[in-house]
């Protein structure tokens, strides 16, 4: 394949792989912190067992997150030297701040993972706070850099040179509040439903003990708080794009022709060659209402944008609808779960259909993250820095990009296989024996 395509494929694969671990890196430490806190304050062994088990998974997942993140930081230069020359100059700062947040995360992670037998219970629990706080900060900083690529600010171009750089203004560019919040919430949604799916599988296999119920409950609690906020945040993002990136919005919604009272196209295939959306479910005036609140509002179509500046609406529209659909599915599952929970006087519902829906919601939440990134990345094309630098002008001149893509793909396959085998092994291994100092002993429950 051409070098540009190979470089994009390698970058895309790297991001798609890393994003799973970064989402868990933001969400899982909060679950750990809550579970260990409940264990200490309620003197409850089950919560402690959950915290110990999650720690083992976290050690593996975070290590893979650290190395796959390193790949990305190298690739910014190795694949896109022209991009990093520009972006490094203007938004290097959030990358550096993210570096510090990652540093603190790694330090306290080391203390947390290996300190169970060395630190006092309270000191150990306190070590979980810097982990989730810096995970949150990392996500914010790194997504602010991506926001800048969508709405670049904080510099002036004079005689082809980037001057008058204001790094703070670049970091706080117009997209930052929308994108960062959307991604952080996505991390909690995906972690919540991802962990819930693990315990739902266990319960479907007949392990309906306290351990599985508590694991499911805490994960679903995180999910049910995050998912409605996420849908509100998604709506705010789309409204923001009306003026900030009309080309992206048009591609997301499959709008080819500028229209007053534009319909909402649900599903379907947006064909850029014919300028039509095939097989879509059409809701009259739906898009105008959603995007602006006014049923007669005009929505800019791709026809207002020069053809060479079009993103490809086919993957953007399809990814967007896939993301929204899985968002609403998870919302529905969470609401049914908590409705039944309170209806049945605070007992965890164990309905098989509901458990199966939770099993499905886990992977779908991660899929939604992947699709969301496809929307924002494909939707920004052909630009890497919107309006300033085209992706094709940013790629390296180094040869052998096809080989590089092939080698990295093999590395990802190898890591994925090893990781899945290892995590399944962890899930099957017997639960750790735990003690809570000075507690009233509860009988230990079996489970795996």
């Amino acid at each position, binding site marked *: 394949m051409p070098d540009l395509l190979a470089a994009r494929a390698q970058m895309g694969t790297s991001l798609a792989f890393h994003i799973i671990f970064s989402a868990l890196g933001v969400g899982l430490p909060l679950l750990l912190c809550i579970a260990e806190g409940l264990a200490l304050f309620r003197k409850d062994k089950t919560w402690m067992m959950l915290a110990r088990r999650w720690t*083992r998974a976290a050690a593996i997942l975070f290590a893979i997150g650290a190395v796959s993140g390193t790949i990305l930081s190298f690739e910014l230069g*190795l694949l896109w030297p022209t991009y*990093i020359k520009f972006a490094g100059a203007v938004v290097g700062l959030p990358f550096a701040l993210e570096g510090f947040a990652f540093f603190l995360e790694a330090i306290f992670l080391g203390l947390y993972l290996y300190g169970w037998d060395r630190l006092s219970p309270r000191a150990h629990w306190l070590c979980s706070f810097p982990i989730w706080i810096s995970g949150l900060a990392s996500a914010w900083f790194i997504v602010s850099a991506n926001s800048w690529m969508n709405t670049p600010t904080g510099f002036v171009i004079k005689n082809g040179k980037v001057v008058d750089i204001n790094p703070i203004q670049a970091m706080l560019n117009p997209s930052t509040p929308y994108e960062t919040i959307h991604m952080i919430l996505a991390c909690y949604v995906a972690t919540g439903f991802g962990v819930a799916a693990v315990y739902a599988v266990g319960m479907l296999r007949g392990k309906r003990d306290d351990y599985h119920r508590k694991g499911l409950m805490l994960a679903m609690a995180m999910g049910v708080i995050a998912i409605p906020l996420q849908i509100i945040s998604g709506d705010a993002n789309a409204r923001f794009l009306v003026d900030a990136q009309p080309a992206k919005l048009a591609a997301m919604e499959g709008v080819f022709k500028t229209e007053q009272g534009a319909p909402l196209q649900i599903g379907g295939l947006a064909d850029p060659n014919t300028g039509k959306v095939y097989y879509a479910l059409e809701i009259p005036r739906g898009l105008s209402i959603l995007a602006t609140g006014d049923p007669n509002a005009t929505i800019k179509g791709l026809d207002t944008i020069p053809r060479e500046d079009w993103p490809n609406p086919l993957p953007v529209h399809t990814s967007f609808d896939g993301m929204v659909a899985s968002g609403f599915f998870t919302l529905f599952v969470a609401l049914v779960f908590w409705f039944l929970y309170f209806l049945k006087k605070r007992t965890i519902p164990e309905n098989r259909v509901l458990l199966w829906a939770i099993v499905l919601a886990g992977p779908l939440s991660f899929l939604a993250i992947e699709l969301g990134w496809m929307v924002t990345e494909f939707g920004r094309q052909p630009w890497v820095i919107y309006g300033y630098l085209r992706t094709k002008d940013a790629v390296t001149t180094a040869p052998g990009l096809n080989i590089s893509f092939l080698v990295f793909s093999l590395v990802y396959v190898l890591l994925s296989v090893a990781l899945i085998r290892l995590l399944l092994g962890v899930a099957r291994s017997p639960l750790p024996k735990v003690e809570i100092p000075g507690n009233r002993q509860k009988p230990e429950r079996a489970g795996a």
Partner: protein
Amino acid sequence: MSVALIALSVLWLGLIAYAVLGGADFGAGIWDLFAVGSQAQRQHELINHALGPVWEANHVWLIFLIVGLFTAFPSAFAILSIALFLPLTIALIGIVLRGSGFIFRTYAIDTVGPTARWWSRVFSTASLATPFFLGASAAAVASGRIESSNGNVQADLGSTWTTPFALTIGAMAISLCASLAAVYLTVEARNNHEESLAEMYRLRALIAGAVTAVLGALGLLLSPSEAPILWQGLLTRALPVVIATMLIGLATAASLFFRKYSLARILIILETAFLLGSWGLSQYPFIIPPHVTIDSAANDPNVIVALLISIGIGMVLLLPSLYYLFSVFKLPSSPAPGLQKKEESTPGDLS
């Protein structure tokens, strides 16, 4: 003193931190390759015990270097990325396999089974390869052969980083990492009361140190022809540092010989710092000799000042945290707050 020079000095300190911390982790991986025979399992456990809590934090120094470099000197970073595409890509794959190999072998369900053994090999082989390619890349920069005068940089498939000089420095990077690790592992083994392991790593530290010295001397001999700018600098402004590096090297060997292990650990850290310091000092004022200087590659001063302020604030949070991490796991002599009262755990206990 310009802000760019301050930024580069800070990055150089970061490089030293990565070398003495991350470098030692690579070195431990190298020694893992040599762990055979009846004591093999005890050596694996000692290495797991030494690396486990700290390797991820040590690794972040590399991220600090990369983001610091592209924020403060974006054009230099772009040139290095293009010119050293191949060795840096190989080093990157090495870094990835080292980290994942380590975690897959330590957390394997059957820690002595075939899967764990295979990942052990991946871990140690990657630990051997990575410092070599990083060292060779550094030598390619120091030799001043990465052309960029006309702004057109060519990706180089081997002419700058496979010279005798670059190969020597690559090999020296391996032996330096191995020496650092051997000294640290001697201290760890002694703290765990594993006297025979401590003796073994003491001997290995002496051998690796001697190899590093020989390779260093060879590198010096090759510099007049292969890295003239570096050689000029080494003879002039960096000369005191070069002499100090040699003397500290001898002192490290002596303290190992007399079994003053904690002193040896401090000395080998100093040794590494002086070695890297002499490189930086000799090629001043260039970042990439012979064309790219600190000032010509520097970003807008606004950004560098913002970066330095952020680093200052970041360090206020980072340094106490790092000290706490190391005092809990590495410095039994300085008791940290929050420690458990009971006796310490057995090495290799992970969950």
